[in-house]
């Protein structure tokens, strides 16, 4: 994959992370997470501009206008999703408690958000996300990890989970209980 496509993919993956983080910030009325969405929005803005410029530059050298056009259109749509995510997170930044119905809707949704703290003895502790295969085991995808006062946003497969980490996850409602039991050591990985 060329550099430009890699950047495009980065915008796509980040747009999804931003939507998940935005809903998480609303559900927990958490300004730290909302702030991260705002910062990611600036990051994807810059990436978008650089992708569009690069696409034009490439078209000027290889003459492939259609490819440049499709790239520019696609990244524009991805950026719209990022904008929408920051629009969601912005609700948290206002000095008004989010409407209780918003939380209910997020919890009612097919894709819900949950959180649990990993205690000593849990199968999730001292393993990378790839080793525990949490996503394929429980359907829950880790959006952020709170470690002490700091957050790790959008962890990857190589990220280790430590005792005391609070995981914020996104996934199906029927995966939530198993995820929580895994974190508390009540259930074991298969």
């Amino acid at each position, binding site marked *: *994959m060329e550099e430009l*496509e890699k950047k*495009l*993919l980065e915008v*796509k*993956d980040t747009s*999804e992370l931003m*939507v998940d983080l*935005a*809903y998480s910030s*609303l559900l927990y009325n958490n300004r730290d997470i909302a702030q991260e969405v705002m910062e990611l929005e600036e990051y994807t803005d810059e990436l978008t501009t650089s992708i569009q410029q690069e696409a034009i530059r490439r078209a000027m050298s290889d003459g492939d206008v*259609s*490819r440049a*056009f*499709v790239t520019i*259109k*696609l990244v*524009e*749509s*991805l950026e*719209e*999703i990022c*904008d*929408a*995510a920051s*629009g*969601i997170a*912005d*609700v948290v930044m*206002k000095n*008004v*408690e*989010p*409407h209780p*119905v*918003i939380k*209910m*809707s*997020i919890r*009612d*949704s*097919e*894709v819900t958000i949950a959180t649990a703290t990993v205690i000593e003895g849990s199968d999730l502790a001292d393993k990378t996300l*790839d080793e525990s*295969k949490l*996503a*394929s*085991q*429980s*359907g*829950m*995808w880790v959006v952020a990890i709170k470690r002490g006062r700091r957050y790790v946003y959008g962890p*990857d497969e190589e990220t280790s989970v430590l005792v005391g980490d609070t995981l914020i996850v996104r*996934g*199906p409602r*029927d*995966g939530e209980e*198993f995820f929580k039991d895994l974190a508390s050591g009540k259930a074991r990985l*298969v």
Partner: protein
Amino acid sequence: MGHEDGKDKVPRTVRDILTEMKDTSEVIVDLAYAALVFDSQEMAEEVQHLERRMDILLYNIRIKAMLSARTKRDAEQLAGLLQVASAAEAISNAAGDIVNLLKYDSDKRPFLPIFLKEAEEKIKSLTLAEKSDMVNRTIGEMGVESETGMRIIALKRGKRWMYDPEPNNRLKAGDLLIVRGTDNGFEVLRSFASGDRLWPQYPVKEAG
């Protein structure tokens, strides 16, 4: 989500409308990427259908929200709620724009499926083998997503597509499943769908 009878009615409460809008804003993006990956005009049409539905939902939730405001604080909170609804609708518009790229000849966008194959969560397809014990069981009773991490975003049975299939949808041999998730999850699901492994059984939980 389909187009079955009665399902196109707008939910009665703000809560239910917002839930549907949130759900739709998520599945519509997956469907848009799937339309690009599989170069599918049918999936693109579903995306456009959902996009129009979101317009209707947004209009309705605005009216209901306005009618329910009694105090200044209500109005402030409802303004935030409508901001979320608008964002969900904006995501759907973006998904609609993404499938519009299918208008251009596929030789002008050959990199689209390739780049989507490298995403963190990928969209793939598989066919349910006759010998798989997923056959004749519902998506909900198996808990496909919680068991494998793979979400079924669409399925094709014969010539008919079903989008965002319901938990009570009973799978049939030969169903083509379009799924979203990690590589690892896909391998797990494929082992069940091919019949190489049996769907896990869990002891029935004791009451309480």
